[in-house]
């Protein structure tokens, strides 16, 4: 593996900073700041009240410490909770009104917001620091009755839907970071698919952290009404900064009877440098509720960035015959840490869940899979299949698998399989003997390892994910 060790270390190429004038809240957190955010967003009274309730609850909570990650204490008073690029008017009406610098940022990231240039079939909501700057293809979606807009806009224009579903899957008191998010969230995406509609294109939100010392707290709410279908993609990057930045998002999915939501993430926040300095703390609560019978929620995630990743996209299988799926690739290189997995809560009858988790550790990376499969007393004939595979590159990294299984119904069948392997010298030699360079051999073997997950990603994303893995792993093998 000596050749592989010598692979060049490419830098994080999304690490640039965009120079825009920002409208920020003062440092620190108190009720005044929350009122400031709510006022900035011209929110209705219920929203402010909800935020304040969350904040008061948060004050009584303590930061969780059970996760298998290590980081210095976060000073919540030394952070900026609201930062928005200055706008000429109250919210951009068209692309012409968006700061040129921001448009260029998204161009650089390969996310052109100009609808003409957009690859066909994907509508994008672009979130820059704390606010949504543009949502493409709105009119086209509106023809089908699909609502896809920034969260702030949804609070204004679709108040009843927000009121009904906000916090219905992740209540503000759910956990420390969810409570913090509920108090200070600034924007995010909102999506509603009406009854029987198959969303005509992929929906996508692209998150970009730009300002220094800001926490990013966005909130995504997706509601798929009866018999509808939506595929949703989430991408993210951040500039290189030597201080850690907190990203504490909340994503809530609601699938009503017969509805299907496919949620895919390629997470590429800045991971910190080779010595482990800087990088994003990605402490996110993602949960979906299969509220109706025969509904289905699939999470597919590729986690390559962040200094620390701590998240468990989960599914509450409430409706009978509902299905929950979780496909994950989590990669830790250098000093990255990840404690990720899922929770599948079986409540309805004949509910099924599948968990395929692939962990790759390189360098001094520390990768933990943590999963909970819970079968409630009423969940007759619940089924779960879990497979956790870890791949180690080098000898200084670690992989842990922590499955929790709670079964309260005798008819349940829960299966768990786990494996840990290394890329063997034999595999590398075999590839090299066929003329394949060590770099390509390693990336081929790793892509093979992740195939079961990648095949669940939309085509474009699968290609991006595969490239991202190669880049993230350069210099990692040895």
């Amino acid at each position, binding site marked *: 593996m*000596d*050749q592989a060790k010598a692979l060049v270390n490419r830098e994080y190429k999304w690490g640039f900073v965009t120079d825009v004038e920002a409208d920020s809240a003062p440092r620190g957190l108190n009720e005044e700041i929350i009122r400031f955010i709510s006022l900035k967003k011209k929110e209705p009274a219920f929203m402010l009240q909800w935020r304040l309730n969350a904040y008061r609850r948060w004050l009584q909570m303590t930061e969780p410490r059970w996760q298998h990650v290590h980081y210095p204490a976060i000073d919540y008073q030394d952070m900026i909770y609201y930062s928005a690029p200055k706008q000429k008017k109250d919210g951009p009406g068209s692309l012409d009104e968006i700061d040129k610098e921001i448009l260029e940022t998204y161009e650089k990231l390969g996310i052109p917001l100009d609808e003409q240039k957009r690859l066909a079939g994907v509508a994008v909501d672009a979130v820059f620091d704390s606010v949504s700057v543009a949502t493409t293809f709105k009119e086209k979606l509106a023809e089908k009755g699909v609502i896809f807009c920034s969260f702030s806009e949804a609070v204004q224009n679709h108040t009843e839907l927000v009121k009904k579903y906000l916090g219905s899957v992740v209540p503000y008191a759910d956990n420390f970071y969810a409570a913090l998010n509920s108090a200070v969230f600034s924007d995010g995406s909102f999506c509603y698919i009406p009854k029987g509609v198959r969303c005509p294109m992929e929906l996508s939100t692209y998150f970009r952290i730009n300002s220094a010392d800001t926490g990013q707290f966005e909130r995504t709410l997706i509601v798929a009404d009866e018999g509808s279908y939506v595929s949703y993609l989430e991408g993210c990057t951040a500039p290189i900064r030597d201080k850690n930045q907190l990203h504490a998002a909340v994503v809530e999915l609601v699938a009503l009877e017969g509805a299907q939501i496919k949620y895919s993430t390629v997470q590429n926040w800045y991971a910190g440098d080779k010595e482990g300095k800087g990088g994003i703390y990605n402490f996110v609560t993602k949960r979906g509720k299969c509220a109706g019978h025969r509904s289905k929620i699939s999470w597919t995630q590729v986690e390559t960035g962040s200094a620390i990743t701590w998240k468990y996209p989960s599914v509450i299988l409430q409706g009978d015959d509902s299905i929950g799926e979780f496909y994950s690739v989590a990669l830790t290189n250098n000093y990255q840490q990840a404690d990720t997995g899922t929770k599948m809560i079986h409540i309805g009858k004949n509910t099924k869940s599948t968990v395929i988790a692939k962990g790759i550790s390189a360098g001094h990376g520390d990768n933990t899979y943590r999963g909970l499969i819970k079968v409630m007393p009423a969940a007759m004939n619940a089924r779960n299949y879990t497979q956790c595979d870890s791949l180690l590159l080098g000898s200084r990294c670690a992989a842990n698998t922590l499955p929790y299984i709670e079964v309260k119904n005798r008819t349940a069948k829960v299966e768990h399989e786990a494996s840990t392997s290394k890329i*063997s*010298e*034999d*595999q590398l*030699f*075999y*590839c*090299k*003997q*066929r*003329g*394949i*360079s*060590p770099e*390509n051999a390693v990336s*081929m*073997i790793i*892509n*093979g*390892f*992740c*195939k*079961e997950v990648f095949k669940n990603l939309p085509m474009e994303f699968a290609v991006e994910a595969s490239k991202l893995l190669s880049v993230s792993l350069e210099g990692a093998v040895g």
Partner: protein
Amino acid sequence: MLEVKNLHVSIEGKEILKGIHLKVRAGEVHAIMGPNGSGKSTLTQVLAGNESYTVTQGDVFYQGKNLIEMSAEARAREGVFLAFQYPVEIAGVSNAYFLKAALNEIRAHQGLEELDAVDFLELLKEKMKLVKMDPSFLNRPVNEGFSGGEKKRNEILQMAILEPKLSILDETDSGLDIDALRIVAEGVNQLRNPERATVLVTHYQRLLNYIVPDYVHVLLGGRIVKSGTKALAFQLEEKGYDWVKEREPEAGEGVKTK
């Protein structure tokens, strides 16, 4: 094409090859025979560039170049191919993908354009007939779930596609039934031409009925102790390796060369 001079090789401090001399010219087929533990596989691995082995002494020249200084992938791109005794499995990587990657890296080295998916598939289908592979094999992961015979046929298929100048076959006949043996031999024979050379490593004379060698060498205790024509293989079959050991007492295990 290949010249091995006084090659000494160790692994983990233990000397396995103790002064090998071998000369292979273009167009020739050489068979290397010998009992278990005589160093046959070590020789093939070293020629192919496996870095687990240390060359402590001697030289290997391939088409005038110092082979020992070349990386495994550089050797492969220059036309050295090893059909492995135990081909490894690569989960999640399809045979078609693997072969295309290999072929295109070799073509790039030769200054040729990459083959696109359509042309490649055509080539693959044609060569698959040669080794009687089922088309479903294309989408199966490399060697995963293959029977012993399928793995060996897959090695020959790879060889047929990559068209090496020097093919080294390590015990390709072991574990094959007579039909599979015939298919493998046919594959090798079809590749025989005046520009290419083959080194066959085998335990048994059986394979040599199908692939007729120009020369036969006997490897014992890390050295080639006897060379001859195909007739030598028959003598070995008849009299066993002990016959050579008796005649060449120095070749016994543990004998140190000076």
